[in-house]
């Protein structure tokens, strides 16, 4: 499996005595968008934090491009070509948009390349060019999300970890952001691991999906097939048959098959 960029084997992470992920094994292939779906507290963000080295796993291993990066320093992991767009954007509010982008390129030496990439992200998100000199804290939520994604691109990564880009955004803006994410993937060939609660968006954008419940993967398949699964329809896409009374509110049992 030479085309596997990222591989997690039996990763377990905990916050004190509370295990957030209880043995997750997954892989992301070169050039694809993979997604991890799950409800609040399923452990999605913990997976990303564990990959990027912010949390050290209790158990298991993480391989990126064939090299073991388990529990390595986050700065080292970024240098390997893996960028993390955290949940809630986390832009530097008192730095200008341009400086935020340059922070993303902090590890790079090729000035020409950096300049070229700034132009590229301005191409993706023209609004950032207009606001290049403004403090990032003054941007709207959607613009901050654009900036956060752009900042990640500035490191010229092989793989971007994208944590809930739709958080707090309008449906229209969410759609736009997802279109750009797909474009980045197609045009730059950047592999993306996307974590989302908006299952509909994520399943449309991604190629391969994992469903996480209570810190364990309960289902994995191509997104095309996942969209057809009964449980995904009922619990993640909100498509349900209304029952005989036309107002069913009880939930079927999840079977994950």
């Amino acid at each position, binding site marked *: 499996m030479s085309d596997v960029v990222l591989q997690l084997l039996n990763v377990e992470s905990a916050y004190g005595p509370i295990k957030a992920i209880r*043995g997750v094994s997954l892989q992301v292939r070169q050039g694809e968008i993979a997604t991890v779906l799950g409800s609040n507290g399923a452990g999605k963000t913990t997976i990303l934090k564990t990959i990027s080295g912010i949390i050290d796993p209790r*158990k*298991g291993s993480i391989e990126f491009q064939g090299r073991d990066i388990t529990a390595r320093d986050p700065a080292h992991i970024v240098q390997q070509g893996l960028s993390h767009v955290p949940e809630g954007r986390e832009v530097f509010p008192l730095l200008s948009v341009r400086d935020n982008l340059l922070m993303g390129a902090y590890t790079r030496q090729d000035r020409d390349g950096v300049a070229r990439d700034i132009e590229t992200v301005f191409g993706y998100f023209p609004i950032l060019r207009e606001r290049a000199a403004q403090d990032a804290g003054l941007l709207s939520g959607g613009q901050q999300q654009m900036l956060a994604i752009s900042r990640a691109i500035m490191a010229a990564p092989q793989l971007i970890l994208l944590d809930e880009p739709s958080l707090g955004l309008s449906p229209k803006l969410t759609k736009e952001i997802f279109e750009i994410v797909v474009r980045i993937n197609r045009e730059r060939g950047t592999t993306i691991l996307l974590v989302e609660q908006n299952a509909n968006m994520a399943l449309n954008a991604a190629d391969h999906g994992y469903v996480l419940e209570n810190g364990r*993967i309960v*289902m994995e398949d191509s997104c095309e097939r996942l969209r057809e699964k009964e449980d995904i329809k009922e619990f993640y896409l909100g498509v349900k048959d209304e*029952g005989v*009374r036309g107002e069913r509110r*009880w939930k079927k049992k999840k079977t994950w098959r």
Partner: protein
Amino acid sequence: MSSTLALRAPAGLWDLAHLQPRTEVVVPGDTIPAVFWKAVELRRDKVWMRQKEFGIWRSWTWGQTAEAVREIAGGLMALGFAAGECASVLSNTVIEWVLADVAVLSCGGVSNGIYPTDAASQVQYLCEDSRTTVLFVEDDEQLDKALEVRAALPLLRKVVVFDMEGLRELDDPDVLSLEALRALGRAHLAAHPQALEQRVAACRAEDLAILVYTSGTTGKPKGAMHSHGGLVYTMRGYNTLLAQDESDERMCFLPLCHIAERMGGEYFAMYTGSILNFVENPETVPENVREIAPTVFTAVPRVWEKFYSGVMIALKEASRLQQAAYGWSIGVGQQIAQRVLEGRPVGAGLRLKFRIARWLALDNVRKLIGIHRARFLVTGAAPISPELVRWYLALGVPMLEVWGMTESCGASTGVPPARIMPGSIGPATGYNEVRLDPQTGEILVRGPNVFMGYLNLPEKTAETIDAEGWLHTGDVGTVDAEGYFRITDRMKDIIITAGGKNITPSELENELKFSPYVTDAVVIGDKRPYLTVIVMIDQENVEKFAQDNDVPFSNYESLTRTQEVLDLIQGEIDRVNAKFARVEQIKKFFLLETQLSAEDEELTPTMKLKRKLVQTKYAPRIEAMYR
């Protein structure tokens, strides 16, 4: 007999003084309603039932229960529910189930239970077959099943809903809430104050009281009919076998449509006054057991297996010191259990050691399960591994196996506490005769507890009860000189291999199920050169095994396909094989790759694999094991 035998058990290990049979009639009455209303008179302010609501245990006294039953019965009469009509209950085990059941019987009606896991089509079949006119449903989920099929049920007049949450908008002339029914009942009884008493008085012992549909591993379910007389006779009989009284606490959590909980739980507690504690839902059983700490606990082997594997898992996480303490303590317990089983005296030294063992570990294990107050445990409804019985004995809690079936109204044989023999189902109980068919070895039962027959199926009834009144149980067994029976297998399940060897699959299956990694297994081999087995793994424990051993997996299916898990199960099979002769050994196996739930056709409502169905459904994979 039992009082002399009781002396053989050492004091200090088990206090068996409380296990004396009670032969006197505790509550008079020849019918279920007569017993109930008499019991209400005798125990009005005492607590009969408890149920946890929003985190708090709420008690129901006999008086409160009586009031609710009275109003529900009045409501049924207001709806024109006549004596002899059938009402069905489609619900999990909740207090309202009991209220509805007793109300229906008090009206002189016939009461039938439907498993809440049944699909709408099964609900339709059972309502049709039983000619149900009023259907009680638990909540909106169960109501939807009823509404889906009601067009096909012309006899069904009303559906009564216990829990109206989410149904406030519902406007349907044929659906009403239990509250509304009770209001109807209050009005009806105000106009006809003696109506209920008349119905109760008119009810006769020979009348049909309840229908219990047998889960039926093949074909349509059959409705076993039990009369009031049979039920009353049997509940009195139970007190001569496993006496309990008003000071006892029981769990009520198995399906009430099943004879075990209906008879051994509801009716037996009605008669003896023991307190029924209802669990919040099927998932919270372990927690609720710890909270209640029942003094008498009846469950099916699957529950006992689950408790055992829970302890084994907790033990693996424990420190070395704790493991060592447990190891030594259970060893002492096993030594005592062995001596007790052999009827040998237990020396003072061993007794002292057992005291230490209890203090060190065994009492904690008992608390972990919730059986620290249990006077005794009862297991039945399916075969149990003798190893498991020995383990509970080693903890110092007597576990008594009973054997019976729907058609014999529950227990027909039972292991007496004074002389436990793991692997045996005990001698015939005092209230019925049990013998072996000299030709086939089939176990036959005769007595007033034997059912009236199958509803609408006179031919099936004639096949099951012979001219002399013997019930043909379909179980094949042996009996020893002391009158202790052993089950070898279901008659139709016995395997005759191509080599002509008779094999009883349940023996192998029970050994396999003793493994914490195996939930259920079906042995195959009829007319085949060798034996094979289909295994359903225990998801929780196997996942834990995989995680502990760094076996990567994503979902259930991939878990069952990993080499390590296959090796693990092979190891369990090898362990079992070692106990059997070569021709009885299992050569190949495969694992079920889908995670099954009670809604799936492969499982009975009690979560056992249906042998016939599994064999047909997985025929290609079975064939592959013989290539």
